[in-house]
């Protein structure tokens, strides 16, 4: 399996690794049984994601997509962050091997989960804004994983 140079760069030197102690929103997606879990922390000021960190259990692509996703939403408005698709994450990484596409789906979901948590903490129902975040469940394919 061949990873692009960008994937390898983000895997070898992941950006924004860690946690935010006083995070405004925390999202966790995936499950250990499938082999990947992403946890994303965001700090929000005036509707802008001013800081973002992640922790990921998973393969090289899972770590690289987490890293790239954090870069793509940092200093962006929540609205912009919610528009980030897994395809955009993949393109920014110069592509992923077909079996790793689900990692980019997880990255997209992790952002949505963190934003949902932020809204919930603000006392706002996130569902109309963020939409439903499917559980990663390989069996029914709802994680977007094409395996």
């Amino acid at each position: 399996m061949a990873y692009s140079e960008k994937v390898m760069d983000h895997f070898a030197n992941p950006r924004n690794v860690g946690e935010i102690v006083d995070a405004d929103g925390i999202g966790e997606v995936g499950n250990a049984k499938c082999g990947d879990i992403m946890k994303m922390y965001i700090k929000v000021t005036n509707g802008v994601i001013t800081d973002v960190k992640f922790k990921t259990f998973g393969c090289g692509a899972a770590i690289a997509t987490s890293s790239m996703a954090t870069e793509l939403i940092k200093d962006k408005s929540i609205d912009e962050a919610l528009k980030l698709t897994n395809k955009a994450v993949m393109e920014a990484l110069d592509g992923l091997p077909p079996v790793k596409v689900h990692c980019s789906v997880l990255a997209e979901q992790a952002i949505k989960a963190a934003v949902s948590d932020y809204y919930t903490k603000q006392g706002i129902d996130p569902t109309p804004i963020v939409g439903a975040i499917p559980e990663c469940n390989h069996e029914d394919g709802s994680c977007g994983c094409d395996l």
Partner: protein
Amino acid sequence: MRKIYADNAATTPLAPEVLKDMMPYLTEVYGNPSSLYSIGADAKKATELARADIARAINAQPKEIFITSGGSESDNWAIKGVAKVMAKKGKKHIISSTFEHHAVLHSLDALKAEGFEITLLDVHSDGLVRPEELDQAIREDTALVTIMYANNEIGTIQPISELGAICKKHGVLFHTDAVQAMGNVPIDVQAQNIDLLSMTAHKLHGPKGCGALYIRSGIRPQILIDGGAQERGQRAGTENVAGIVGLASAVKNAVSTMEERTKRITAMRNRLIEGLSKIERSRLNGDKDKRLPGNMNMCFEGIEGEGLLLRLDLMGVCASSGSACTSGSLDPSHVLLAIGLPHEIAHGSLRISLSDQNTQEDVDYILKAVPEVVSYLRAMSPVWERIKSEEKQ
């Protein structure tokens, strides 16, 4: 950067002396062994000398050695070939184990689809099948027992002599996939009652694409590859002469150096196991002693195997893992699941397989690299975070 090749269970580098033995058959002696003129006859002679060397290594007769393209073909031929012949005698039951190589398991799947009944023996948590369970599983209509000599992932060596004796007692044919074991443990097909045995060259510093199937005299598995009369009419195709010579050369070298070499490799392997066992929440997969000399397979909780391999690769270490991500499928290694590991732990496995070309310095380097990488990945793992917080409670 230092480069350490520690994935010898996947394949091994070709030994210079093997290449030297092969060279004439890749250059001047290019004749077809079936031809009558001298370069054909010379090639034929080389294949027959090679066959005798291979036979000697396992205490078989040269006429019982059939050259194939490697381990997978040997396994397919042995299993499907015997099954089809035995089916004509009304025997359509085959016994194997849950952690065989896919060349065996998928051959059995194919037979199952054709109406054969398959019993897979449990591989216990130590990575070993129990002879008494084989004894109980054999039935009147059992056509074949196929159990690997040593496992490719966790390296555990099965009690082959006992299994062979049980098969003999019941009059059932016994095949073993010895692809990993060959050259690493003494094999005697007579003493161990082995009826068919698969081997391949590239696991013992021979070339890729050449292997052999030992078939005890008197057994005639159905032919898998039809065509010319090569291999005593049992396996068609112009001989891979250089490959055959390479296989024999590799086998001969492995057998003649076995005692000293395996002692040295085992000592290195034990240092690895001892050193890496100091990592918290790590575990060795498979029995500590009944395993191949070069095999170390461990799980490290809280991390995923592909990340581990890629980081080790960045540090120059080539190793392997049974994680789902490295297998290209959803599930982690069927071998690790077979010995009872839960999915989330099986994802974090590391296999290091040493050969004679590794050094104590390599071991030192790996002993430094692996804990570093494990700590790094754990520091960014939400699973590890959870494990640690549960520990505190």
